[in-house]
């Protein structure tokens, strides 16, 4: 199921020791691209698209990125407005600071804080939630507004710049579901675990930057 538009795209999935990359790799393959898993900064040089997946805690994520000397390369890559997709912790790590397990400085690519979900509901926020678009975006091309995506998280991104939030999900507050700024996109939900529409997110992102 190779997609001629995507087959030659140099898609790098960053491995920083967070485990379970397999589903992201398979999802990207399923939409017709040939991703490469890499953990060295040099991999960003020639990349057409970089994907930062991730589960776990913010502090571990940042420590892992620092140990692999990936912090500055990621900041420079995104700073040059090259195509970058963050998923779950790969979104939260882009923020200024995370309150998960104390105060932890993050990549500060997106301005704002990662804060605990409001009390009163089960935490983690786990399962399929309805995602509503705040503005139309090619990232959700072919996906009906209000479709459901799979979330697993206890903290969420409170962005300083509301215009960067393109989609939200209701969980006692408007939880940031997807963010976009230039060629940077990131989702709180797991597209690789969100069925056909989830895979469509990957395809949309890759196609958009294959044609650019």
């Amino acid at each position: 199921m190779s997609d001629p538009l995507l087959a030659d795209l140099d898609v790098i999935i960053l491995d920083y020791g967070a485990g379970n990359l397999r589903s992201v790799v398979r999802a990207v393959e399923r939409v017709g691209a040939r991703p490469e898993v890499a953990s060295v900064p040099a991999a960003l040089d020639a990349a057409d698209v970089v994907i930062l997946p991730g589960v776990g805690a913010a502090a571990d994520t940042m420590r892992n990125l620092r140990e692999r000397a990936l912090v500055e390369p990621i900041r420079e890559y995104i700073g040059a407005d090259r195509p970058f997709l963050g998923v779950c912790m790969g979104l939260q790590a882009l923020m200024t600071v995370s309150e998960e397990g104390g105060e932890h400085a993050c990549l500060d690519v997106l301005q704002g804080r990662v804060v605990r979900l409001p009390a009163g509901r089960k935490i983690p926020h786990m399962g399929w939630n309805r995602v509503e678009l705040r503005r139309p975006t090619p990232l959700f091309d072919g996906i009906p507004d209000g479709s459901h995506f799979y979330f697993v998280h206890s903290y969420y991104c409170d962005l300083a710049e509301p215009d960067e939030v393109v989609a939200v999900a209701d969980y006692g507050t408007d939880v940031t579901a997807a963010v976009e700024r230039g060629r940077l996109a990131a989702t709180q939900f797991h597209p690789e675990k969100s069925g056909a529409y989830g895979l469509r997110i990957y395809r949309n992102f890759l196609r958009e930057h294959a044609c650019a």
Partner: protein
Amino acid sequence: MLTKRIIGCFDVDNGRVVKGISFVELRDAGDPVELATLYDHEGIDELVFLDITASHEDRNTVVDMVRRTADRVFIPFTVGGGLRSDEDMMLMLESGADKITINTAAVERPALISEGAYRFGSQCIVVAIDARTESDGSMQVYTHGGRRPTGIDAVEWAREVVERGAGEIMLTSMNTDGHQDGYDIHLTRAVSDAVGVPVIASGGAGNAQHMIDAITDGNADAVLAASIFHFGTHPIMDVKRQMRAAGIPMRMEHADYDDVL
């Protein structure tokens, strides 16, 4: 709004699904990966594989199943059965499982929960609790597939596993399991109201009304069903439609991969 989940569960013995499953559409109805793919296509929200193989020394069969599932199924799935260490957990997670579930091993050594949660994150750690409502009304935890009483109170144990880092509880009632006569609402509610993490009701699903009751009266966040979907008499989307008609938020789209891509 967060929807309530329907979770399909397969018991797997030596790589084969046990309990008579008869789907005409399948080439091999005993293959857990084929069944998982079909359930995904039919609109299931999540899947659980419980490995009931007597000997857990040879994990290759399970690892192969997990890998093949991760290759074809793009919804979350959990693997459990005989996992006794964080190394066992890692093997499953690295092979592509999203979560692991532990039961007897957690009762025998509760630190296993915190070790797993610390290493992989709470979101990966589902603690399964098998409990029976006794004649005096107490709710007791059982281990070893529901055969061995522990003297532990189910609600107390649920609180403890959450303190130790469980991200979710899969709660099976030994009283109702296998009867298809409804979940144990009292037990489900007692546990769900006692903890801050999602609780999956299990044991006793026979129809959509049972699932509605487990959610509206039992306060369950998800319902697990092993056999009711296996014969095609209760199509998943029919059950979901009935649940939605009862006012429960459900994910109704189950788009075909080939149509969307």
